[in-house]
């Protein structure tokens, strides 16, 4: 590559990374600001962390968000894996086009529409059969599962279509029953995809504001709803502190996950090397 072009590409990368990361770095720096006014530096201090940890609202909202995210991710992986299996392994079945449509649509559907439509459904159901009697944990979780399972299905779908069917066929030829093939061969092979799907569903749920604000009821504030109600009125140093904790937790999580994946990949390569050598 000629030096002029590689210099251009290098500066493009620097600009891109600066654009993505400078705002977050500043967010973190200002969380240690002693001043009440976010952008004016008043010396280093941890006082906003103290304010944050003493806030009971924040603890309650965090607990609710984690509870929703956990239940959501678990259900979304179960439903999404079934949907992925149905789409890749079962060929044509009646209503397949509608099914594919309903799997891909939530990925690009504007959140306001998903949120509004689910709320109207919950209200309609309540009038019709008396359920759900109140909105909160259950309704938010159902809403989250509905869009999260679509993401899981797409991950499982791409893993399944990249996976060769010969292992499953071999097991079947050796007399394994379909359910046994599913539990002993297909699902273990899918496990990394399911784990990735679980983590994605968990994060999507923790991150969602719009759909949760439509489907929540009085008194059920998730963490994004709480953050939003505070920052709508302007900058808040305690939110900077909260942001710092979230960003650091995610960064550490992603680095550990990436490192594990890399190690697994290297191990696999080594195994293949040894297998080839022996």
């Amino acid at each position, binding site marked *: 590559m000629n030096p002029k072009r590689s210099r251009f590409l290098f500066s493009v990368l620097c600009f891109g990374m600066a654009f993505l990361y400078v705002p977050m770095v500043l967010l973190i720096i200002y969380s240690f600001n002693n001043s009440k006014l976010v952008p004016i530096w008043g010396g280093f201090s941890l006082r906003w962390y103290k304010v944050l940890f003493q806030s009971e609202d924040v603890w309650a909202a965090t607990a609710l968000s984690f509870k929703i995210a956990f239940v959501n991710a678990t259900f979304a992986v179960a439903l999404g894996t*079934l949907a992925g299996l149905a789409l890749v392994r079962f060929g044509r079945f009646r209503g397949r086009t509608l099914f594919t449509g309903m*799997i891909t*649509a939530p990925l690009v559907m504007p959140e306001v529409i998903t949120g509004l439509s689910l709320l*109207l*459904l919950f209200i309609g159901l309540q009038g019709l059969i008396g359920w759900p009697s109140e909105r909160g944990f259950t309704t938010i979780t159902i809403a989250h599962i509905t869009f999260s399972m679509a993401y899981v*299905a797409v991950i499982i779908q791409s893993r399944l279509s990249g996976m060769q069917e010969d292992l499953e066929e071999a097991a079947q030829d050796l007399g394994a029953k379909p359910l046994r093939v599913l539990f002993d061969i297909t699902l273990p092979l899918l496990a990394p995809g399911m784990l990735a799907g679980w983590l994605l569903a968990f994060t999507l749920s923790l991150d969602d504001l719009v759909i949760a604000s439509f489907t929540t009821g009085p008194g059920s504030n998730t963490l994004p709803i709480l953050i939003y109600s505070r920052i709508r009125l302007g900058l808040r140093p305690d939110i900077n502190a909260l*942001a710092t904790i979230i960003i650091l937790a995610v960064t550490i999580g992603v680095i550990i996950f990436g490192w594990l994946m890399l190690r697994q990949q290297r191990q696999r390569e080594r195994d293949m090397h040894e297998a080839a050598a022996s």
Partner: protein
Amino acid sequence: MAQGAFGRAIEKAQASWKFLVIFIPYAWLLIFFLAPFFMVLKISVAELRIASPPFTPLIATDAAGATIIRLVFDNFAYLWEDSLYLNTYLNSLKISTTSTLLCLLIGYPIAYAIVRSTPTTRNILLLLIILPFWTSFLLRVYAWMGLLADQGTINNLLIWLGVIDSPIRMLYTEFAVYIGIVYTYLPFMILPLYANMEKLDMSLLEAASDLGARPAVTFLTVTLPMTVPGIVAGSLLVFIPATGEYVIPDLLGGGNVLMIGRVLYNEFNANTDWPVASAVAIVLLLLLVLPMMLYQHIQSKEASS
């Protein structure tokens, strides 16, 4: 004979097992994804009334006791006649189109630079692109509130450098909305572009330059046409959600930037006019149905290949 009956029983069990695998997620999506749209559709043709629920029923009995179906298209007529809504739709489309182009202009060279770097650097760079994805969307928008505010970092820096005397108004303007959308949706543009470019046969580019094509010519006649699928996928992934965006115009645009997602949200929550909010949602869906079908078409082609 017994063998045959046993075989049929197994076949039946297998069929019902397959049926369950399809049925469970299918039923979930029918109830919680498709049915809600019919609710929206139903309420969009109802009238506002002061009661609970705050709209007229679709099927009612009239004074004579006969069952009638009431369809009111006033809400749609109202959207058409009130210039606020029309302007809001047009403004949303303008903002999302411009932001998509900006993302493409910024994202394309970044994706290209990632593809052309060494494998180790490439993995690190990809991780850096994906990382913001996993952190809170809301807090990334909030970060720009601190940068763009009148007393914010950018204004403070410019005043300190002596470039300006008084702060420039950036927060609560359309400019801030553009920044917010490009910032949060840039990874959605870069990743499909990267996935597309990664599969490209770079030897074609070398062949073109070996044959004496100038870089610009190579780019326009070889690189650009080959990356069209990535461009289309990335653009749709930015354009569709940006059109209905609520958080960014609300936090960074304040009351000054009209976008349809925000109008819908306010119509529902502040004005509690459910029929009009539903009609707004239906029209927004109609605007996006073509790009969404295009995206689905690409996805299914990708999955089958």
